[in-house]
């Protein structure tokens, strides 16, 4: 006996029975999977991916480090608590980073992004973008005066083109790729000369940036185009270095003459000071506050949106509560949950008797009544909500009737809309069918004999209902409540139209950030929180009531 229990059971062909069973089941599973594959794909594409992308967007913050890569690195060293603006090096990187951003029009996007965190950064970046050329021209004009060859695109090309600088080229290409989000691939017909890259690092880098953009984006020929102002600024920067001056005097390659002329006339160039230059463009650049913001939000991923979504903010001193006069979201979340709860309650109270009638009336009458219940589904949400507007407003039908009946005076008509009342009334009406239908289908399965049995056992009508019928209809209430509550939590058209200011939901703010302020990161964070709240509530419901106790039908 003990032998047989230890031996695995074999199927007819000698294979272990377990294996054969698994094989047979696997085929079944694959077939089942294939059957649901289209739906699965659909759900993944239209539901899972958008949700994941929303979650991603709520923390994603690559734009700062992608647009100002070197600035962000240089800024790491800076200590914002000293209340001193960063030193020249940071501004120098800012100039060259920003120049690229301006050429690719990325700087205004960055400005919009940072403006969510600090007011004024939008225009700071926009104005700076416009004035950035002036900063370079300060050096371009004297250089061209020293040697007119500096005016010629071909001259620059000849001087800086060479060999050995492939690495530099690729690293600059990578910068563009990050900043613009495009591949920037392709032969640009220019390779920086390694010699020049060592002697004139800033110039060569700026020129390489220029070359890549000119060929790949503008589809022009490098040698035929006049270089950007940034290239002149780069040269001026390089000429600040005494070692460079020495190197130039020993240099004999292309453009040596012009370079030597420039090196000999360095004193004709204004002193290179990007810090002052930026301060001249807009004095905000000299403020440590701006730099703090950039520093705090330079990470690729930020909790900033989520913090904003719960009325907190990320500051150089850590997470802090927002000023009281800017706190809004927690209040809205609470209000949304509370009102969704009230609406769910109202739907239960109003829907229960109707569902009971539907389940207990003769078929013919019940069908007619069912059509009345479903009727609202056949009219557009907007129309129904607008109809409530006509009913609820102060000069509306309900008030007119109340005044006519003498319940309220003409002067003090009730305010039934543009507040929470309006939202609750209209949404209860709109969501009622979602309560009635599951209730009805559950009630339909409760045989009338239970009530009779209870009565025959001596229960009054009320006891029979409360002790016998009601407990059995609870699964329907559960299903209807979940449905109504979750739908209600995400409503926004109805609150927008009849909710005024005290009857709006968190979704109205989400809609605002999606369509008006374009702060999609914040919208995504708010949406994610809403999603989590719903999931938590669902989990709590499962724990307390049990999800098996939810029935949508027999």
């Amino acid at each position, binding site marked *: 006996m003990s032998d047989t229990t230890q031996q695995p059971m074999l199927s007819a062909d000698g294979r272990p029975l377990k294996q054969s069973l698994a094989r047979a089941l696997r085929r079944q599973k694959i077939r089942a999977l294939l059957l649901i594959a289209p739906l699965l794909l659909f759900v993944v594409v239209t539901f899972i991916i958008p949700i994941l992308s929303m979650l991603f967007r709520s923390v994603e913050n690559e734009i700062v480090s992608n647009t100002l890569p070197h600035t962000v690195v240089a800024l790491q060293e800076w200590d914002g608590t000293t209340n001193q603006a960063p030193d020249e090096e940071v501004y120098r990187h800012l100039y060259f980073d920003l120049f690229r951003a301006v050429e690719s029009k990325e700087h205004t996007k960055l400005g919009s992004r940072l403006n969510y965190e600090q007011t004024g950064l939008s225009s700071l970046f926009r104005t700076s973008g416009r004035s950035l050329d002036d900063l370079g021209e300060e050096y371009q004009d004297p250089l061209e005066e020293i040697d007119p060859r500096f005016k010629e695109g071909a001259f620059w090309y000849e001087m800086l083109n060479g060999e050995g600088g492939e690495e530099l080229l690729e690293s600059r290409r990578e910068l563009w790729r990050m900043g613009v989000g495009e591949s920037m691939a392709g032969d640009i017909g220019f390779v920086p000369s390694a010699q020049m890259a060592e002697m004139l690092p800033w110039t060569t880098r700026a020129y390489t940036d220029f070359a890549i953009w000119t060929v790949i984006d503008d589809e022009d020929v490098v040698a035929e185009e006049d270089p950007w102002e940034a290239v002149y600024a780069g040269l001026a920067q390089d000429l600040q270095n005494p070692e460079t001056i020495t190197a130039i005097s020993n240099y004999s390659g292309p453009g040596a003459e012009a370079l030597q002329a420039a090196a000999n006339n360095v004193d004709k160039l204004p002193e290179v000071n990007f810090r002052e230059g930026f301060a001249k463009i807009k004095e905000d650049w000299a403020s440590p506050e701006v730099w703090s913001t950039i520093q705090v939000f330079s990470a690729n991923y930020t909790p900033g949106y989520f913090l904003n979504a719960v009325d907190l903010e990320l500051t150089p001193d850590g997470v802090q509560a927002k000023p009281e006069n800017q706190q809004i979201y927690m209040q809205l979340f609470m209000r949304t949950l509370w009102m969704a709860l009230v609406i769910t309650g109202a739907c239960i109270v109003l829907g229960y008797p109707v569902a009971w009638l539907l389940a207990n009336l003769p078929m013919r009458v019940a069908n007619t009544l069912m059509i009345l219940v479903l009727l609202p589904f056949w009219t557009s949400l907007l129309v129904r909500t607008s109809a409530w507007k006509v009913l609820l407003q102060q000069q509306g039908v309900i008030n007119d009737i109340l005044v006519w009946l003498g319940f309220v005076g003409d002067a003090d008509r009730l305010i039934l809309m543009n507040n929470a009342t309006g939202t609750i009334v209209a949404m209860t009406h709109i969501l009622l069918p979602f309560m009635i239908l599951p209730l009805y289908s559950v009630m339909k399965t409760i045989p009338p*004999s239970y009530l009779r049995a209870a009565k025959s056992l*001596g229960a009054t009508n009320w006891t029979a209902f409360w002790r016998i019928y009601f407990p059995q209809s609870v699964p329907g209430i559960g299903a209807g409540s979940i449905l109504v509550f979750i739908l209600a939590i995400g409503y926004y058209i109805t609150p927008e139209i009849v909710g005024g200011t005290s009857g709006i939901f968190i979704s109205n703010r989400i809609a605002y950030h999606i369509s008006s302020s374009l702060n999609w990161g914040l919208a995504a964070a708010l949406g994610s929180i809403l999603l989590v709240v719903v999931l938590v509530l669902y989990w709590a419901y499962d724990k307390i009531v049990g999800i098996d106790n939810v029935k949508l039908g027999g």
Partner: protein
Amino acid sequence: MANDASNDAFVEFERVQKSYDGETLVVKDLNLTMPKGEFLTMLGPSGSGKTTCLMMLAGFEHATHGDIRLGGESINGIPPHKRGIGMVFQNYALFPHMTIAENLAFPLEVRKLGKSTREEKVMRALDMVEMGDFGGRRPAQLSGGQQQRVALARALVFEPELVLMDEPLGALDKQLREKMQFEITHLAHRLGITTVYVTHDQTEALTMSDRVAVFDDGRIQQLAPPDQLYESPENSFVAQFIGENNTLEGVVKEIKGKTCVVQLDDGEVLDAVPVNVSEVGERTRVSIRPERVEYNTDRLDPDAHTLNAEVLEFIYMGDIFRTRLRVAGNEDFVIKTRNAPDQVRLKPGQQIKIGWMAEDCRALDA
């Protein structure tokens, strides 16, 4: 006399009528009197009005006309929960969200009995139906038979004087049903409860009841103890409905006291008891039970009329033989004979003579 009536008549229906739609009567002029302790079955095809009568008695339907009395008092205006009538439903109607014990405690709870009394009574009721160990289970965890017992216990736990049962065994298989039939009757008699039992199964009605009321078309066709019902049906509906029955049609030829002669449509004549016929020349339908037909002519009265028959089919059924004959043009004429050692087994095609005692054959309405 009045005293006697109130003693005897525990349940009374007097000229009760019921209509649902105001156009047709479901129950037509029902009169019924039941003494205390009786087990009465309402038997009839579906739509005959038996369940409606039960529901009127329970209080779930109102009589359109007439009076229903319980213990001498009219209960027309009393709501069901005040009538104190126990009821067992077709599908048991055990409350699915309560345990068995809670189900049983429910009628005691609404009567505001103390907890200890409740528990004691529940235990006693469960023991009574041999379900003592199942108090903590839910109805869904029990088999059909067990649920049936619980339903019965629940209907009895508050000690009602009258119990109504609406086809309570309909959902059980044959064996269990027969067992339960016995148990229910036994219990009812032991406890001395008055029981009204509704069924459409005539065997059940015959085996269980003190009296059976056969319903058809909203009327009681016959109210009688089972043996009387079987042996002396008062009309052809009852004859047809109760047990197996052979019928032949013809015209009354002659009436002499307690017997009459009927001439069948093919000219043959037979003897019968005139039940629903009074005049010569009247059309009639004669009914004869299969087991009362005799084909061994030696056993018949010499002067009794006999009929010619042809054997069409012979079926061996173990304890009995069932033989189908063609008699006077009727090809469904069946006879049943006991499987006794000396019994002749008829063969299809055989021509025989059949006959019966005149008192076993009843000339009924056509």
